[in-house]
């Protein structure tokens, strides 16, 4: 029996308030790599990640990690959400945020111990943020915040990582540092999936990419997928049909 894919999405459709925004995504990732999820604004890239992680419900289809449903393997999956999703005035320091990565393994009610503290400090050091451990999270720059979030994901000690726009609005130094850590993860045999909107950098950074625009346009090795034809299909695609149909489904009526 062959080993199951690391990640498999089967006919995944996602709807917000009854309106489909992502249609019938079929995707399998077999081996560790840096995997870019690319598409225009509003294409449903973040939705795809959130659906895979069970944060938004699936209207149809299923997702498996290592051939198993997510609930059995939560501890092997790490996540860095978009920075906008967080209240920056929350009373937590950088080190507290990183410690949150260890909570899942600790389980209900168990307190953070010395082992967790050491792990968190090491993760913070790995992204070059050790000196800022006791700084309140809102008093860090955007790039530093993103590095803290990456450290939190590292503290999850996962095998598959999802990062939602980790490089958006981030200074050059932080970009370098984040990208270096992500490459290291790949070299350690982990699968790293990154939502990304910048086509220029995508070609040089990712081993494989998926082009998404309300549906999966193409997926595979970067140089094959980023062809002129595929890009045209992604960025000037058949949106209106899916858009109009989505509205009709939401309203429960036929299109004209």
């Amino acid at each position: 029996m062959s080993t199951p894919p690391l990640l498999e999405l089967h006919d995944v459709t996602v709807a917000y308030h009854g309106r489909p925004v992502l249609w019938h995504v079929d995707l399998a990732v077999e081996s560790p790599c840096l995997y870019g999820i690319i598409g225009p604004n509003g294409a449903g890239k973040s939705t795809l990640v959130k659906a895979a992680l069970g944060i938004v419900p699936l209207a149809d289809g299923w997702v498996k990690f290592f051939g198993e449903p997510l609930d059995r393997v939560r501890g092997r999956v790490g996540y860095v959400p978009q920075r906008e999703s967080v209240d920056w005035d929350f009373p937590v320091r950088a080190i507290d945020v990183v410690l949150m990565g260890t909570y899942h393994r600790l389980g209900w009610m168990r307190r953070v111990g010395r082992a967790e503290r050491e792990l968190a400090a090491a993760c913070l050091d790995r992204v070059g943020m050790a000196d800022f451990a006791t700084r309140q999270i809102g008093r860090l720059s955007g790039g530093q915040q993103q590095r803290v979030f990456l450290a939190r994901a590292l503290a999850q000690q996962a095998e598959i990582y999802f990062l939602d726009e980790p490089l958006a609005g981030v200074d050059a130094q932080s970009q370098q540092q984040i990208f270096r850590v992500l490459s290291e993860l790949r070299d350690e045999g982990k699968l790293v999936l990154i939502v990304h909107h910048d086509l220029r950098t995508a070609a040089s950074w990712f081993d494989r990419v998926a082009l998404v625009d309300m549906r999966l346009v193409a997926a595979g090795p970067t140089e094959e997928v980023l062809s002129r034809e595929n890009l045209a299909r992604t960025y000037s695609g058949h949106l209106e049909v899916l858009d109009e149909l989505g509205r009709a489904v939401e309203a429960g009526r036929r299109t004209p």
Partner: protein
Amino acid sequence: MSGLRGVIEFLTASGGMHGWAMATAAVVSAAAAVVGSLLVVRRMSLIGDAISHAVLPGIVVGVLLGGRPGGPLATLGAVAAALLTVWLAELLRGKARLSEDAAAGVVFTTLFAAGVALLSAAASRVDVDPGCVLYGMLELVPFDTVELAWLEVPRAFLGGLLVLAGVLAVLWLSWRQQLATAFDADAAAVVGLPAKAMTTGLLCATAVVTVASFEAVGAVIVVAMLVVPAATAELLVATLPRLILVAVGLAVASACSGYAVAWQAETNAAGMIAVMLGVGYAAAVLIAPDGMLARGTASLRLAWRVVCEDVLAEAWRAEEVGAALPASPRGGLAGMLAAWWLTRRGRLLPGGRLSEQGRGQAEMVVRSHRLWETWLGRHVRLPLDHLHPPAEWIEHYLGAEMRQRLEAEMAHTPAGSVAADPHGSTIPPER
């Protein structure tokens, strides 16, 4: 007619006591509804709530200085307290980085507490019942009157009428600015409209309305009169002028019915008015154009259409391959019910075969199904065995125009025109 006579008797009994109380409740409710409409559409309901509580110390100070609870001094005090509330809340948001609701929560509870404490401390010198603060004394309003030409008019009614007139006049004069600010305060400020002044004016108006309704309903229940009529109207109509009209209508109706019910049930009128407003809102939630009843029936209708179309399409497919019809239609009980209904409507012939009319309808469902499979196969690149379930779903949502668009679009792709779906079945032409 005896009903009408009963109403008139009720209104004019004991020197028109009920009539005046009801009229007072109606005018202050109407004024609150007008101001509240702007608060609700500008998403400032909670500021309205905060201000209506926070004006209490202002009113008490006004009364301590020799004014009446609904008089000019109290009004001045209330406006000052309202401005203090807004200033404090802004300060807390800016300097202490509190969220909007936490800032409002801190400020209005503190000011309201200060008002109540002040009232208790000066209990010997002020004639304001603490109960009045919480739920007004609408029943007593008719007994405090002023001589106006030949008529004895309750003071609170007169005050309410003046405030209503003032609110309407200001709204009339600043209508365009209000509309622009309500729609988008930032954009209004950018094009040079006095958005800030509009906002401050609205907050002052909230304070004035609270003072005007203070004797009738108190400083707590007034929040229901500010917010509920507008929130109800918002469910029923779309434009701001209509929203205000409907809100005022609802406010007056709830004021009158609430007072009457309260009198019958021997309870507090202000509380009952709030209950009536709540009943109106609940009714609107049910019967509004996109309310729960409408949505419920729409989704039932959709489910029914899907079942009927599935039965028809199944019959069509059986006809296409010349197979016998299944003994009972798909979809269990609903399917059987649909088959019976379709037979009655002449879509199916007795025995389950399609009538000419039913065949036309079924053909369009199958056409939608196969067109969508084809479109998906080309544009979403789903594997062949993944195509059927999505099409089974989408076939019920494609209209004639969309079907032709899909067909035309695919005719231009390299694969050429479509006559067959990816499974090799013929796609029926549009009828």
